[in-house]
């Protein structure tokens, strides 16, 4: 957040690709769009393939990593965030951070949930192991 600047909207980016355009908004070049699309498709097949390989606990992290890469591509190029005001990126990052906070702290508590209701030790003495 540019706290000391009077206006958060940065100066219009250089119109290196987009032609005459009053808003100073970047028109994404065709090649970039297609490249991102192909990358997304490749990543989709990659994640399907990765799920067939047994990596133990790492599987979910690999899947999430690929999903994050895909998500980042969509956000940066399809959603123009790469060329956009930093505050917009901050809005998204803040939201993601708070989702992580919510899930993280709630998961912290999930460790203690009882898997199922067990008989109390008084009612049925535990077998000696």
């Amino acid at each position, binding site marked *: 957040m540019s706290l000391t600047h009077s206006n958060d909207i940065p100066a219009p980016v250089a119109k290196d690709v987009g032609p005459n*355009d009053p808003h100073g908004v970047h028109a994404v070049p065709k090649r970039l769009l297609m490249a991102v699309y192909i990358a997304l498709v490749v990543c*989709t097949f990659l994640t399907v393939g990765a*799920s067939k390989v047994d990596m133990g606990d790492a599987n979910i992290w690999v899947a999430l990593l690929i999903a994050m890469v895909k998500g980042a591509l969509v956000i940066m190029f399809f959603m123009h965030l790469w060329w956009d005001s930093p505050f917009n990126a901050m809005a998204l990052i803040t939201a993601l951070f708070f989702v992580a906070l919510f899930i993280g702290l709630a998961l912290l508590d999930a460790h203690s949930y009882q898997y199922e209701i067990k008989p109390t030790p008084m009612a049925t003495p535990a077998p000696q192991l």
Partner: protein
Amino acid sequence: MSSASTTETSVHHGGHEHHDPHLAHHFDTPEQQFNSAKLGMWVFLGTEVLMFGGLFCVYSIYRHNYPLVFKFASETYLSTFWGTLNTLILITSSLTMAWGVRAVQLNQKKLLVVCLSLTLLGAGGFLVIKGIEWHAKWNEHVWFGVWNKYNGLNDESFRAPPPAQPTTEPVVAIMPPPPVSIRATDMDANTGIDISQIKPRYDYAFSQTIQAPSVAPSVEKPSPENANEHYRQLSDAAQWRVNTFFSCYFLMTGLHGIHVVVGMGLITWLLIRSLRNDFSSEYFTPVDLIGLYWHLVDLIWIFLFPLLYLIH
């Protein structure tokens, strides 16, 4: 909004050679207005992320607690083929949407119409496939919560079979024995498991009868070859949790589906307006904002797909 009458007293617009009909009276420049709208949209998208975040939290907690159940349910009942196809469809519709925004930025109005139509088509295709999948789940009796055959509490037919003779337990005496249903002895089509053998985690009323093996009728136990490998690894209590997976599945895909439907409505509105020639490189704020929304819908699916369909 109409604003022309209110701008006389202000000192703004001095440098403008023409008055933009889309410029609201409280903004000074179209640029300021566009940036405000975009900022507002991003903040709104942040709220969408948090709203879905709640469902992701539910998912994380239950997956964390019942990892094998999730693996079993996903591998057994969800089709990777349909999931992958849907992912590709949604990614493609995202591409056409991005292309549409590019088209309107470059004032290519016909291309915009084409792109919006393709996006709408993709959204429709996505929903059709989703419908096929949901319908299959319905046929297999694996919907959410109590509508799931693995849930021992609601659907009477999947409780323990009725006792062969009246027991002396008062709790059974009060409650009429549940009706015998055809499904009670059915084998699950996917797993070959006899659902009637699934025990509720805790069933206060019927706990007496469930624990009495003698009262169970002569139902054939599923042979080990039929039973799904993962299923046998699950404890009795965990088997019952399959419904939790499907609750997550339907809540997440359901809320996502609602967003797809809303998106289709918005894109249709865009399509009508673009056919009316409302948008140009001078004014395309709605196209851009709804594009952002549509990409977010795509984004959420990108995460839903591996989490629901590709559980290893």
